[in-house]
């Protein structure tokens, strides 16, 4: 454990963390770009790094990216992803009142606070949960996954049919390849490269990053948006534009509430930062004595959202490290980085790779400190990048996607998959099918099938299964309850907001 922690303080590791956080803030600050896109492209870059630096780099990108998304939301009301869109609801009005630095500083401090809270919960709970997880068998894991799928569906509101289609399509695509149990070929169409399945990184780059690029380029093609966008809000123009200690103290409750919600959401497989942000914002509004002030520049609104969406980052590692189940699409990409370095996430990681795990924990805390310093000091520098013409940004992203797809697979097969799924991602966005849910189905599908088949093999008699593994029927019942509640509540504002989060 000590060796792992000390390893995190190696200058090379710190340099990669700083690079990751800076890159994340930069990418998040560019309109239309998001941290998941950067991570999808960044995973292949970690081949040359050691395991701790690789994961720390990617998590640094993620942490920085969530704050970076707030920069573009607050200054030009153009978020890169849904969780940042909520920040704009109160952040942009506050910026227009001449207080952009106040909004940005609240966003930064809330983000770091959420990160520290979630990372602390992760560090304290991961090892004990891993011991518990060793007691869990395929039946319990099956229950967790059924609960996750049902819980996701409860958030889909009106789009439940599109969500079910997206989820099951993702699961179907994930069945492509050689069947692990029997060795038979499934849907490979005689293509040798498909025997290993459809590559995750290529599909993620295509759907997450390039699909978004296509949608934005099309807007220019159809002349739907102006050619130039000027930043009209200047930081530091108002001498009263700073965040006072009193104001920060007044938002501590909102930060704590957001952190708890974000940590809880992140620990459930299949959800993500956007869902956490929506739930935290809704909860803060309901708890407020002046809910009508939300949307006019309320600092508590910014605090709740930013603490929640950053808290997801650390807590999504809880199911990943303890059960081997990624807590979000981004965590699933980080699984890719683990596997590249020969490490299998799951309960045995604490026995076989303890040094890596504790190095990772220390790196997470270091990344929070780095995020605080770089976010504070480099704010003016990052906002300069908002002035780069978006067409050049989009072109740069397209070639980075091409490069990342080739590097991750080492062959043109990955490039082909990425290009095909870029078009799929484009259509999913245009036809309002939730592409994140599609990715979740693709990522969790194999795990679901494996646990289902092992459960069927081990237990002929359903009554024996239920009595020996009561957690399975309990989780299934809870999942069905949430799904029923979600479908019933589809007309409420919070359900509609959550639906937008699930659709992304």
């Amino acid at each position, binding site marked *: 454990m000590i060796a792992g922690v000390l390893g995190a303080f190696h200058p090379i590791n710190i340099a990669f963390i700083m690079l990751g956080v800076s890159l994340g803030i930069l990418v998040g600050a560019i309109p239309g770009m998001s941290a998941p896109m950067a991570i999808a492209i960044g995973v292949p870059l970690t081949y040359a790094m050691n395991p701790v630096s690789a994961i720390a780099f990617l998590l640094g990108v993620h942490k920085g990216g969530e704050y970076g998304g707030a920069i573009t939301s607050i200054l030009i009301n153009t978020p890169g992803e849904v969780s940042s869109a909520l920040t704009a609801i109160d952040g942009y009005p506050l910026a227009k009142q001449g207080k952009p630095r106040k909004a940005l500083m609240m966003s930064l401090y809330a983000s770091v606070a959420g990160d520290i809270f979630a990372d602390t919960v992760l560090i304290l709970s991961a090892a004990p949960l891993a011991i518990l997880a060793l007691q869990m068998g395929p039946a319990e894991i099956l229950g967790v996954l059924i609960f996750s799928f049902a819980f996701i569906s409860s958030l889909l509101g009106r789009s439940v049919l*599109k969500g079910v289609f997206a989820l099951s399509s993702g699961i179907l695509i994930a069945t492509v390849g050689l*069947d692990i149990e029997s060795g038979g070929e499934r849907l490979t169409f005689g293509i040798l490269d498909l025997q290993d399945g459809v590559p995750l990184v290529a599909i993620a780059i295509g759907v997450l990053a390039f699909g978004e690029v296509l949608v934005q380029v099309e807007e220019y093609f*159809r*002349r739907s948006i102006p050619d130039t966008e000027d930043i009209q809000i200047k930081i530091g123009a108002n001498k009263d534009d700073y965040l006072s200690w009193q104001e920060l103290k007044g938002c501590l409750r909102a930060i704590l509430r957001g952190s708890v919600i974000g940590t809880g959401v992140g620990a459930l497989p299949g959800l993500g930062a956007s869902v956490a942000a929506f739930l935290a914002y809704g909860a803060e509004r309901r708890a407020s004595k002046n809910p009508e002030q939300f949307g006019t520049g309320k600092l508590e609104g910014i605090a709740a959202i930013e603490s929640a969406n950053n808290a997801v980052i650390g807590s999504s590692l809880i199911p990943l490290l303890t059960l081997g189940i990624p807590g979000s699409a981004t965590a699933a990409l980080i699984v890719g980085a683990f596997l590249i370095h020969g490490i299998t996430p799951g309960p045995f990681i604490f026995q076989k790779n303890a040094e890596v795990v504790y190095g990772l924990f220390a790196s997470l805390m270091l990344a929070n400190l780095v995020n605080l310093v770089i976010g504070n000091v480099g704010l003016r520098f990052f906002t300069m990048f908002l002035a780069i013409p978006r067409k050049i940004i989009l072109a740069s992203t397209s070639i980075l996607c091409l490069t990342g797809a080739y590097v991750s697979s080492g062959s043109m097969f990955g490039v082909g998959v990425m290009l095909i799924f870029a078009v799929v991602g484009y259509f999913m966005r245009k036809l309002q099918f939730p592409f994140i849910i599609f990715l979740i189905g693709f990522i969790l599908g194999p795990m679901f099938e494996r646990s289902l088949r092992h459960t069927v093999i081990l237990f002929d008699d359903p009554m024996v299964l239920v009595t020996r593994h009561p957690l399975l029927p309990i989780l299934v019942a809870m999942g069905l309850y949430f799904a029923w509640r979600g479908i019933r509540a589809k007309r409420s504002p919070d359900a509609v907001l959550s639906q937008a989060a699930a659709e992304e």
Partner: protein
Amino acid sequence: MQRTDLVSAGILFVAGLAVILWVIPTYVTVGMQTDGDLSPAFMPYVAAVLATGAAGALFVARLTPNAADDDEPPLPLESWYFIGATTLIFAVTFVLMSTAGYLYAGATIIAGFMMLARANPKAVVVTAIALPITLWVLFSKLLGFPLP
């Protein structure tokens, strides 16, 4: 959106039926099976049936318009021109990267999308030349990832 949903749901429903009735029976082979195990075709069938059922239900549900429907279709004619141009750019990029190398493919994809985005021609030329070279040097020479 109603019309678009009906068309897309209809197409996806028919495609789903094709997957269930022809693709899975033809392209899923059974290897060595463990006693009591589910067939390798089980999960593909479950996923395909769920997807097809959802598409069919969406088609039926959207026969009735709802208040949220707006008049503007999400995929007007211009979008189809854009998709056609994108497909062409992708095909040329893929062939160039396989035959001529990364620099030509990179220049093509940058130039193609910047032109679709109606960028300034000078910016297109400069970016299409400078960016692929920069990335090639970064990845192939500095990071050690050889690009074609």
